[in-house]
C-alpha cells in the first residue's frame, strides 16, 4: 500500500513532537516576537525569544499548523537554545538545504541540526517543504530583526 511511503515523512519522532510539542506556549517578557504566516495554507506561527549573553536563552512558539510544521517548530526550539545568532543562521541554511534536497551527507545534518535532521524525509514531498521551513524562517527573521533592534510583526 502506497500509504507506507508516509513513514518516510511522518517518522515516529515527528509524530511525537507534533502531538506533544516542546516549548509550545507563550513567554512572559520575551525580548522579541515575530508572527509568520504561510499564505498558501493559512498556517500561523508566533515565535518568541529571550536572549542572554548573545545567545538564545529561552524560546516559545504558538499558532496553528500541520504535523510537519508543528514538529519542525518543536525540534527547532530544542536545537537553538544556547546558540548564537551566527550558529543559528548556519543551522537555518543547513535545514533549508536538507529539506530542499541539496546534496550533503546525512551525518553532516545530524551534526548541525541534531534531532531536526530526521525531517530530511520532507525532501521527498516537495509540496510540504514550506510546512517544514516555516519555523526556521521565523527564527531567521526574528534574529535578523534582533540585529536591527526592531520587533517584527
Amino acid at each position, binding site marked *: 500500500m*502506497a*500509504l507506507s*511511503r*508516509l513513514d518516510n515523512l*511522518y517518522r515516529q519522532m515527528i509524530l511525537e513532537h507534533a502531538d506533544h510539542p516542546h516549548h509550545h506556549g507563550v513567554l512572559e517578557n520575551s525580548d522579541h516576537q515575530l508572527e509568520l504566516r504561510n499564505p498558501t*495554507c493559512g*498556517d500561523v506561527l508566533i515565535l518568541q525569544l529571550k536572549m542572554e549573553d548573545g545567545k538564545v536563552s529561552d524560546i516559545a512558539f504558538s499558532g496553528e499548523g*500541520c*504535523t510537519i510544521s508543528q514538529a519542525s517548530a518543536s525540534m527547532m526550539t530544542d536545537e537553538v537554545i544556547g546558540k548564537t545568532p551566527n550558529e543559528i543562521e548556519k543551522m537555518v541554511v543547513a535545514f533549508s538545504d536538507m529539506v530542499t534536497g541539496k546534496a550533503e551527507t546525512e551525518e553532516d545534518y545530524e551534526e548541525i541540526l541534531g534531532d531536526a535532521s530526521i525531517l530530511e524525509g520532507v525532501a521527498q514531498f516537495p*509540496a510540504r517543504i514550506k510546512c517544514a521551513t516555516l519555523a526556521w524562517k521565523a527564527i531567521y527573521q526574528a534574529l535578523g530583526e534582533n540585529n536591527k533592534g526592531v520587533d517584527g510583526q
Partner: protein
Amino acid sequence: MVKKMNEICRDFPILNQIVNDERLVYLDNAATSQKPKEVIDAVSNYFLRDNANVHRGVHTLAERATEQFEQTRFKVKNLINAKSEREIVYTKGTTEGLNWVAVSFGTQVVKSGDEIVVSYMEHHSNIVPWQILCEKTGAKLKYVKLTKNGELDFEDAKEKITAKTKIVSIAQASNVMGVVNPIKELAKLAHENGAYMVVDGAQSLPHMKVDVQDLDVDFLAFSGHKMLGPTGIGILFGKMELLERMSPLEYGGEMIDFVELDHSTFKEVPWKFEGGTQNIAGVIGLGAAIDYLQDVGYEEIEKKEHELVEYVLPKLLQIDGLTVYGPKEPDKHTGVISFNLDGIHPHDVATALDMEGVAVRAGHHCAQPLMKYLKIPATVRASFYFYNTKADADQLIKAILATKEFFKHGTI
C-alpha cells in the same frame, strides 16, 4: 446527448495513470478540470495548421484563425443565452473579469457613502477588487451572512441590500461548500433597490446550465479551465448597454480604430476590451470545451454529479471524527465537498490521500473570510466532476479510513 457517460473516461487520457503506485483519482476539479482529447486536439491543430494572428492578416491562415477565434464568441453566447455575441468579452479568467467590472464599471457607479454587497462565502477574487473599489471611492463593503447549514441567508440579504447598494456581487456556486446561491432572486432584489448584479460563475458554469437572460444578471465572469478548457482564457459577459459605458482597461494594439498623434478612437464592444494579441489557442480550446460540454449535456452532467454526491456524502458523514462543512443533504451540493478529520491537519490528510492516488486540495481555498467565519484554519476539499466514478468515491473513502488509521497509530 451525443456522448455516452460510461465512455467518457476514455476522452480524458490523463485520468488513466498510476500515481504513487495507485490508480489516480482526480478530485481537485474545483481548482481546475482535466481536458478531453477534443480540447487538446483543437489547441494542437491550431498550432499545427492554423496558427496566425487574428483580425489583421489577409492571408488564409489569418482568416482561419480569426474564424475560429470569433466562432467561440457565438458558442459562449449560445451557452449562456446572451442576447448578442458582442456581450461576450474574452479575459484571462474569472479574476480578470471581476477586476474589470470593479475598475471600469464600479468607479462609474459607486460613490462615497454607497454600499457594495458580497457574501461570506466568496472567493478572494470576488472580495479584494471590491475592497479596493471601496478604498478608492469611500464606499462600504457589506457581507451577507450564512445560515447554520452554510447556505446564503436570504433574509440577511434582504437587510443588507438597500437603496444604498450599488453593486451586489455573489458566486453562483461556492468553491468551498458546494452550495448553489439563488442568483435570480438576488438579481431581482438588487434591481428593485437600483443596484447592479454581478455573478462569479467560476464554479457554476462547469456544472449547470446558466441563462443570463432568465437570471437577469448584469455581469457574469467565469474561467475556461474549470470547464474543460485551457488555462488563461475566461469570459466576461455584460449587458450591452453596460459594456458600452465601460472604458477599455488596456490601450494599444488590436483594440483601436484610428490612432492620430494626439488621440485615438477605439473599436466597439467587445473588441475595445481586447487589447494586444489575444490568447487565441485558449479561445479555440474553450470553443472545443463548450462543444464537448454540450455533447454530454448539462442535464446529464448534473445527473451524474448528483449521483456521485448522493453516493459519497453519506459515506463521508458515517466516518467517525469527520466533519463536513456546508449542507449535509446531497441535493444541496454541487460536486464540491469540504471536510476535516478530527485531530489531523488538512495538509497532512491531503499528503496521505495523495499517497493513495487521491488528488484533493487542502487549505483555505482562497476564501480566508469564510474560514474565519467557520472558525477553522483550513479544510480538505474533494471536488467531483462528471467524469469521476463511484470507484473514485470508494477509493477516496478507503484512503480517508487508512489516513485516520495511520495518524492514530503512527503507522499502518
